[in-house]
Every structure is written in C-alpha cells, then in structure tokens.
C-alpha cells in the first residue's frame, strides 16, 4: 500500500517537474524574443562605424561612450533639444489628458443633466474616427492661423481623449460611491474642490496608468509632429530619428545612428521599468471591487 503510494507521488513529482521545465522554457523563449532587439541595439550602439560596416558579430564594440559623445553633440541632429521638446510635449499632454478625461468622466458619472446619454454616446462615437481623418482639417487650420511650430498645439488636443475618458468612467463606477460626493458637499466643499481633493486621490491608480500610456504614446508620436513642426529647433525625437533614414549611409556614422535610437527609447523604457507595478495594479484594480 505505502510502496504504491510513494511510487505514485514520485511519478506526480516528476510530472510536475517536467511541466515546470516546459513552462519556463516557453517563458524563456518569449523573453528572449522580446529582449533580442534591445540587446542587438545595445551591441550595435557600442560599435564604431567601421566595425558596423564589417562582418556581423555579437561582441561588445567598445565604442559606446564615444558614440554617446558624438550623438549628443551632433550638430545636424540636435538630440538633446529633441529630447527636451519631446519631454515637454509628452509630459504636458499626459497631465492634461488624464486630468481633463478624469474631470469629464466625473461630470458624466456624478451629475444628472439633460442629454447626458447623448453626450456620452457622442464621445464614444469620436473613438471610432481615426486621428488621420481629423488631422487633415486640423493641419489646414493650423497653417491658416499660422500656428505651426508651436509645441502647445500638440499638447492641447490631448485634452479630448475618448479612450482615456471611457477608462476613467469605468473606473469611477467601480470605486466611487455617490454618498462620498454628497458627504463632501455637506462638509462644505465646492464642486471643483470635491473633484480635486476627494475624487482625484481615489482615482490615483487609474490616473497613474493613463499617464504612463499617454506619455509613451505622445513620446512616440510621429504623425502630427511631423506635419506641424518644420523648424529644426522645434523637432521632437521621432522626427529626428525618421530624418536619419534619408541620410547617406555610406558617409554617415552608423554607430551614432544606433546611439540616437537608444537615446530615443530610453525614457520610455525607464517609465515602464519604474512604473510597471502601478501599470499592473491600474489595469486590474478597476475590475474588482475591493
């Protein structure tokens, strides 16, 4: 009896071990696939132009700092300026997008007013219009008013973000009892103050996750900036990277090019690395009441 039991449990243990090995193998492959491009980029950015022109190798090139120095001080592609511009646009639009989307969601969630449903449906309908379609009119308007090369023109339209609004509204529905708003009203708070001091802190996880998403998408945005920013000192990082493509590869220092790309994705990687916990928390927190 006991012998049969122990052999059975040993068999189960072996099975579990094999399953675990398979699972780790699978995860390992996925991780390798994801990391491959980053590792390649890192390796390439450490090589000199001549090393890159030569045979492909997986060795560390040893010219990393040199490439960094060259890229940072490049006269034609002013990457520090581009990063500052990108940061201004991405940070401001992330702040504006999340704040005003939360405000709109709060308004729709808490107040009863005429045409509320119609307004909600209208906002949702906007989600279906691709930005490229509305861009045509927007660009024309910007040119006619002479508003090109203004960074705030890239920031302000972020205020109307139906997707973020929808996320915020769903989140509010799951976390905000209306009694809390009423309690604050009776406590003497003004409506705007209730939003800022009571509601916004409760929405912190949702705000955090949407800030990250809008920061990243704004940082990576190429379409609108490329149409609106023409002056070199106003360019954002994605425009600068795109312009490298038109450079003459035979004359250009490719080590520098890889360094540009590395610098361009660095802030995004940092944001994800530092805030990944709150992303996970934010994505799941709206779903379960607790």
């Amino acid at each position, binding site marked *: 009896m006991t012998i049969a039991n122990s052999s059975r449990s040993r068999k189960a243990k072996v099975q579990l071990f094999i399953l675990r090995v398979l699972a780790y193998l699978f995860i390992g492959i996925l991780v390798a696939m994801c990391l491959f491009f980053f590792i390649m980029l890192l390796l390439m950015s450490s090589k000199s132009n001549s090393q890159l022109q030569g045979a492909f190798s997986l060795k560390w090139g040893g010219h990393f700092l040199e490439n960094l120095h060259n890229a940072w001080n490049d006269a034609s592609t002013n990457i520090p300026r581009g990063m500052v511009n990108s940061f201004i646009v991405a940070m401001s639009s992330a702040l504006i997008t999340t704040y005003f989307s939360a405000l709109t969601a709060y308004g729709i969630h808490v107040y009863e007013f005429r045409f509320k449903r119609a307004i909600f449906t209208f906002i949702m309908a906007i989600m279906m219009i691709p930005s490229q379609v509305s861009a045509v009119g927007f660009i024309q308007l910007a040119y006619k008013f002479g508003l090109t090369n203004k960074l705030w023109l890239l920031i302000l339209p972020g205020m109307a973000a139906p997707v973020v609004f929808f996320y915020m509204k769903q989140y509010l529905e799951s976390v905000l*009892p209306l*009694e*809390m708003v*009423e*309690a*604050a*009203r*009776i*406590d*003497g*708070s*003004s409506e705007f*103050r209730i939003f800022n001091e*009571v509601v916004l*802190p*409760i929405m*912190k996880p949702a705000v955090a996750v949407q800030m990250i998403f809008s920061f990243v998408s704004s940082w990576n945005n190429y379409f609108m900036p490329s149409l609106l920013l023409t002056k070199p000192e106003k360019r954002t990082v994605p425009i600068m990277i795109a312009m490298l493509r038109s450079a003459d590869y035979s004359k250009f220092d490719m080590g520098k090019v890889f360094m540009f790309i590395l610098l361009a994705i660095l802030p995004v990687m940092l944001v994800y690395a530092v805030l990944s916990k709150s992303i996970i928390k934010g994505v799941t927190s709206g779903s379960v009441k607790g």
Partner: protein
Amino acid sequence: MSEVKLVNIKKVYPVIERNKNKKNVNGHRTGNLQITDQGVVAVQEFSLDIADKEFIVLVGPSGCGKSTTLRMVAGLEEITSGELYIDGEYMNDVAPKDRDIAMVFQNYALYPHMTVYQNMAYSLKIQKASREEIDRKVREAAEILDITDYLDRKPKELSGGQRQRVAIGRAIVRHPKALLMDEPLSNLDAKLRNQMRAEIIKLRERINTTFIYVTHDQTEAMTLGDRIVVMKDGYIQQIATPQEVFDHPSNLFVAGFIGTPQMNFFDAELKLRDGDYWVDVEGASVRLADEKQERLKANHVEEQAVTLGVRPEHLLLADKGIAGRVTVSELMGSSRHLHLTVDGKDVIIIVPSTGGTGNYIGSDVALGFDGSNAHVFSKATEKNLEY
C-alpha cells in the same frame, strides 16, 4: 436654537419615458407610489415642526420616502414644492454646505485616502479654521466617540463599528444645527447595532443638537426617538411619541408596522350598549376601557363592523373567549410565542414560559383580552376610530 420646519413638502421624480416600465426610478422603488403626469411622487403633504434639540425618527418600509425626505432637508434632493425652514430661514434653494447641517450615511462614506483625523478635520479645514481649533475640535469629538487611538489610521484599517463612529465624529465635529442620520446602523451586525444604538443615546446627551434619524428598524425608532414619524408610500401615517404610536396607532398600517410580533387583527362588530362601546368578536364580547369610550364618544362613532387589533402580549389564555387551536409553539427564553389558528386566520400570542416542555401544540384554547388593549379600526378607511 435649531428648529427645523417642513411645510407641505412634496417630491416628484420625473419619469423618463424609457424607464416607465422599470421597477426603479433613481433607485427608488415605485411599488405603491403614485405616478402622475409629472413623474413618481416619492413624498407628499409632508408637514412637520421639529423643535430645538428634538430627536425625530422617520420610520417606514423601503420606498416610503423617509430617506428622500431626509435628503431634501440636507439639500441633496431638490424640493418639488413646499417650504423648508431651518431656524426660521427659508432653505429650499440653499446649497447643502450653507445649511449648517451634518449627515451620517448608511455606508459611512468616509474618504478612503485620508486618515481618521483628516476625515474629521476636512469640514473645518474648508471653513478655514485655525490649526489649533481644528486639532482641539477633532480631539474633542474623538474623545466623545472613543476613537482617539485610531486618529492616524485609514478607514480601511477599521472595523464597521469603528468606521461608523468616525462617520459620526466627522458629523459632530463642527457642531451642526441639525444632525441627519440615514440608516446609520443598517450595515452593522445585530450585536454591534444594539451597542451603537445605546451609544447614540449617550451621544445625544453629550452633544445636544437636533437629530433627524431615518430607519426601517422599529426598535431603533422606539428606543431613540422623542417623536416618531411613521411613513408609507410617501405619506405621513402618524407623528407621535413612541408610546403614543404603540398605544394608539392611527391606522391599520401603523398598528401592524410597530411592534413585534405584529398586532393580531380580527373581524369584529362595534356595538353600543347602554351608552357604552363593546366589541363582539368570535363569540366573545368585551367592553372598551373608559379612556377609549371617551375618545369614541367624542368622535360620535356609530355601531359598525370594524377590524379589531390586539397585540400578542395583550391576548391572554382564558377559560372562554375567542376559540383557537395552537399550531406552532416557539420558546423565546423568558416567554413563549404560540401561533394559533382562529377561524382560519393566524394569530400569535405571547405567554410566559413555564419552564416545562409546554406541550401546547394541537390543543384548543380560548383567548381573552382587556378592553384597554383593544384597538378598533374602521373597515372602510382603515383609520383608528379613536382619532
């Protein structure tokens, strides 16, 4: 001084066409509520004078309009028609924050990101009170409610009872003119509810303000209120002291709603014999008490078929009287509840538990009652004929 006066208050929730067939409109059951062209009438003809420092309890079943009334006093619901005065000032269109009232909600509604101290200090902070004043008042209120030890904790780290204390603390910290409570004990378990009920009685002695308290629990209504307002389907049924409501319910609904187990009702005849009122029921005949005689005479009540109400504790086992058969016997400890069938109807009586097995089931008994404990209601209007 903080008197609250409600004059002919009415609340109508506009019905959106689409919702007409639904059971809920704005979260209020529309079961027996009147639906007019304007919408669902949640409260109507509500007039009440609340004296300074009085404890008023609004009680009634779900959807009777008690919470709506309270919310209108708080300013959280618009008053459709009628007038509301607090301290003689017309308040219909005044914002909640300018009414100088405080409210305790059923689900506490504490701010989850603030500590207990910050929760309690919030209203004072908005009033721009000095830091010393805030600190003094918060600690004073915390002392009264015995929550000083939790001041640095967040609401989620507290138990239900502690949270409710914080919610009360937040309300009393700025000494409001009136303290409104919307079923504050409903979320607590039975034992804690009893305890908190006693605490509210003690609290009242210490803070001495006007209370308006909403509950569906008649025990809370009876034990807490100076006066009870019994409501049903948006109408006031009776406004009186707990004793008065218990002893002289104004109609069948109040008689049935207040008191556990519920009052027993019999079909009976009200008779005049030698100038005295008698009730004849199931072969028994009982002369009403002198006090009731006077009230009925003053109303010139005629002989008629009536509904007779007698509370279970006032029905006694007798040698002769209303005949019934015991079907269920429940031992409650100090007493025993006997369920009887009398002429096809269920009747409950309470008898002292004798300590024995009390094998009543299946036995035929006769019931008697005293004329001072008989309530006679009109068959037509369901009103107590004494009124």
